[in-house]
């Protein structure tokens, strides 16, 4: 029950953010707002799919990779948003701290592989997270749009924490830290809208 409530809340939040970003895009025609709307839209559709599966069939999808595909798609939209908001100078910028992103990705991949058999999906997840973290750390090092980069970094950390907490599943209760991290993720997702909107000139 908690999982359905948690997913429904996150779905409502991301759908509202998608509609807001879409309205901003239709008014101002900025590429960044379009990508932000795509990110939220994709994320909310994925949540809708997962929640409907849970509500209608009382189980979670496990035969094929629809959930993984949609999740990776939303991450690609976020990555493209980061790329679009970065100036050419920022894209060229390098600092040592950026290498934390792939190092963390490799460490998390090793942890997931130890407990999980879905190696291709884990690899994709870690690559997507590393790429977003790489851009966020680079943006923080370069300066400017601080709130957006911090929100993106928090998104990566929350996703890593979610997967780590789902390894030893502690049941569908509030005692399970997974749900608290997911509630925090909802907050982070909402915070991305004003943070990215500012950079996008909304």
């Amino acid at each position, binding site marked *: 029950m908690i999982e359905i409530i948690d997913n429904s809340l996150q779905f409502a939040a991301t759908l509202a953010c998608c509609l807001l970003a879409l309205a901003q895009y239709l008014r101002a025609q900025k590429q960044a707002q379009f990508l932000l709307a795509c990110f939220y839209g994709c994320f909310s*559709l994925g949540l809708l799919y997962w929640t409907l*599966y849970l509500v209608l069939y009382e189980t979670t999808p496990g*035969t*094929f990779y629809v959930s993984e595909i949609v999740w990776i*798609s939303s991450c690609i939209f976020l990555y493209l948003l980061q790329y679009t908001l970065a100036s050419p100078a920022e894209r060229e910028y390098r600092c040592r701290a950026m290498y934390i992103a792939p190092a963390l990705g490799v460490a998390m991949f090793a942890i997931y592989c130890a407990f999980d058999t879905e190696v291709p999906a884990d690899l994709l997840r870690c690559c997507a997270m590393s790429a977003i973290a790489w851009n966020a750390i680079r943006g923080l090092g370069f300066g400017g749009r601080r709130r957006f980069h911090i929100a993106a970094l928090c998104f990566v950390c929350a996703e890593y924490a979610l997967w780590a907490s789902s390894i030893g599943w502690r049941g569908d209760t509030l005692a399970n830290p997974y749900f608290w991290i997911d509630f925090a993720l909802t907050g982070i997702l909402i915070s991305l809208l004003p943070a990215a909107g500012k950079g996008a000139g909304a």
Partner: protein
Amino acid sequence: MTYIENVFACIAAPLVVAALCAGGRHLRTFVFALAGMLSCLLSAYVNTFLAAVLDASALGATAEIAPVVEEVMKILPLLFYLLVFEPEAGEIKAAILVSAVGFATFENVCYLLQNGAENLGFLLIRGFGTGAMHIVCGAIVGHGMVYVWPRGALRAAGTCALLGTAVVFHGVYNLLAACGGRAQYVAYALPLLLIAAGFAARRALPARPGGDK
């Protein structure tokens, strides 16, 4: 047993003849309609193969395997068109929509062969719903492609992301349709409502020239 390749041959034959007679600018429309139908035929083979390999249940095959396979197969003719012919924006949208219509038509024909054609009311609702779903998926990919294709950096990643979005929309539709009862009608209404919302948004907020790149 449904011999869908025979059905395909019967539907494709007059289209091929018409395409050859029409020629010129109209040829493309026929080719994409045929490509859509061929994608549907190949999707059926791949779906069956994957369902057998993964030992999938009926729900798994409908709601998880089919959306991925069908959307991937549907995008292949468009990708070929984009990479080889480098068409203009308007042509991209038309190509994917005609391809989606071809796909939906062939899927409807196969459905009729398997389930009969007695209940016209339900078939109309289903026909509009399924048709609209394929159009919405096509529109997601088509409109998105128009946007991402001229922007080199966004091209590959954008295509994957658009494909993922179409897959999950298709997945939600199949999930609801497979459930039966009221959920089935929600599935049929969902793409129609989205198309209506899209038209309403376009009328209410006309695109301003001078947006950024």
